[in-house]
């Protein structure tokens, strides 16, 4: 009917405007993922002279028995879990400070973002240098400033310390990101709520528990969601900082995938690894999404 011509014209333009974006996204996201699913049912590596030979689930079977895969999954989980917790606590603290009014707040805020903005690969170099076993400034500080250790610690040489160092580096890099998101959430909480609560006789701590936390929950979840995804796929930091060593103690799934494809030319298995990681990720995101909606309704948004 003629009534709709305006709307129709509008929508035609609309599609024209969206189309390029959709195409690019399909090319760069849809194809690789789809491709990975297919390829994961083939064996394509040096022993097949790089021909794709359908071998059903063999890649997945092999994965089950692949100690390196499991240790990389384990490493990734540890890495992700620990850094997320630390970031949440630190980020919250920073956000709370930055939310207060004090002279020079603008400057501090600016400075606080810097870590997030810097290139991970380069920062990884910096950390490698800082944690260096013999010339590392970190050792020097612990030794000569705080006297916490007698012997220089070989941070990147020792499996545990290497993981600790990597986590430290990652926390340093991304805490500011968390802080920013939380800060935004904090500022979205109307001041009157605190004032009302104060008039009711609440201490700052009580206000934090009864108002800040519940109302901030959505942002907290969102921040954690983003960070989870990023941490779970972390690559550049580790390949530069530890290369996954020592003894694969800091090898994450992403590094294993990269080696499998680029070093061993084991494409089929690589694809299988991609698929599994992908599924894990989607699963977690789905769960988080569920909690997010719950938190949103709980905190009174609609």
């Amino acid at each position, binding site marked *: 009917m003629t009534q709709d011509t305006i709307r129709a014209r509008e929508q035609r333009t609309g599609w024209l405007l969206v189309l390029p974006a959709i195409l690019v996204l399909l090319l760069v996201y849809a194809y690789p993922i789809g491709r990975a699913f297919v390829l994961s049912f083939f064996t394509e590596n040096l022993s097949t002279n790089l021909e794709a030979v359908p071998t059903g689930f063999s890649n997945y079977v092999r994965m089950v028995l692949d100690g390196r895969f499991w240790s990389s999954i384990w490493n990734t989980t540890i890495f992700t879990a620990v850094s997320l917790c630390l970031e949440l606590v630190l980020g919250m603290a920073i956000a709370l400070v930055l939310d207060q009014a004090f002279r020079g707040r603008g400057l501090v805020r600016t400075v606080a973002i810097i870590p997030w903005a810097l290139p991970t690969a380069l920062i990884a170099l910096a950390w490698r240098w800082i944690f260096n076993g013999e010339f590392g400034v970190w050792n020097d500080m612990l030794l000569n400033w705080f006297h916490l250790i007698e012997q220089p610690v070989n941070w990147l040489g020792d499996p545990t310390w290497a993981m600790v160092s990597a986590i430290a580096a990652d926390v340093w890099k991304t805490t500011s990101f968390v802080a920013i998101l939380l800060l935004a959430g904090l500022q979205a909480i*109307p001041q*009157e*709520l605190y*004032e*009302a*609560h*104060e*008039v*009711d*006789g*609440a*201490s700052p701590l*009580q206000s934090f528990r*009864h*108002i800040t936390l*519940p*109302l901030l929950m959505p942002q907290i979840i969102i921040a954690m969601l983003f960070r989870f995804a990023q941490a779970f796929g972390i690559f550049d930091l580790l390949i530069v900082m530890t290369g996954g060593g020592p003894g694969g103690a800091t090898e994450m799934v992403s590094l294993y995938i990269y080696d499998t494809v680029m070093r061993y030319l084991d494409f089929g298995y690589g694809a299988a690894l991609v698929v599994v990681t992908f599924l894990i990720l989607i699963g977690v995101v789905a769960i988080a999404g569920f909690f997010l909606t719950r938190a949103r309704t*709980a*905190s*009174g*948004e*609609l």
Partner: protein
Amino acid sequence: MSNVAVKNLNKTYTAKVVPVRDTSLRVEEGEFLTLVGPSGCGKSTTLRIIAGLEQPTRGQVLINDKDVTALRPGDRNIAMVFQSYALYPHMNVYENMASGLKLKGMGDVEIRDRIKDANDVLGLDDLLDRKPANLSGGQRQRVALGRALVRRPDVFLLDEPLSNLDALLREQVRADLKQIFERQSAPVIYVTHDQTEAMTLSTKVAVLHKGDVQQLDSPERIYTRPANKFVASFIGSPQMNLLTLPCEGNQAVLGSSRITLPDRFVPPPEVVLGVRPEHIRIASPGDQPLVKGTVFLVENLGMSYLVSVHVDGSEDTTLRVLLPSDQTWDQQITLTMSPEKLHWFNVQTEERLPDHGA
């Protein structure tokens, strides 16, 4: 016997921004004081200082004659209703009302009782487990009120509690408010920039302007005896006509007509005449003084017409007159006003000139 007072209150943000200059007020048990004034005149600031949310630059806040200036808001036993209601979005109505009491460590039973009492007044019973997001403006307003009532505070502070409601609803809630607060005795300080609210609700009105109290008086006197030009223009709608007139002898000259000044004061060279539109009427034979004019705009207000008139002999002065809707008139119109309804102000000081017997 609770009461609240502020002594020589001053709040200076910057040398330019001084929302409160040197304010002293006192509200006794059972009194309802309204702070009214244009936006930015320092109403909220004053209220927030009393609540303890802001620290005064100088001066004291007294509750029950105790100096509480250094006390935390929570320790002053006051209740405050915010313009935005400030309901906790993640708590349902019941929790919202209970939170203040819980903080005091009150037992659940007593809390329930108090909330019940409040609801007898406010009728929120069937909303208790709703989240604020699912409440209408009026309901939220009532919850906010309830949250204040259950605290049984020494003082109630309200900052423009009605300004987020639409016209019709506001009229009703206004009446409710009046009844609710007539039922209890704790002093109330109420901030608004709507003069109708000020007039209808209060036992005492303080008109604020530029950080100073312009007049502190009963609603009636504010309306009938505005202390200065500002109060006169701010209170009353449609606005009072304020005309600056030259004087000849003891008569003020309005266009072609003369208006005799009250004989009690020495005739100044110039004087400001204030007369409310509703106090001007079409002259009937024998009326004095007479003002002739030409109608150039008529606005129908339903029960009456707001007629704008160019005064003959000084075309740039316009009189706005409120005429009953059953009356008729023609373009050329002759008006009169009863002398006792006229207000005279000093041109320079803008202060009211002394009244009869004063």
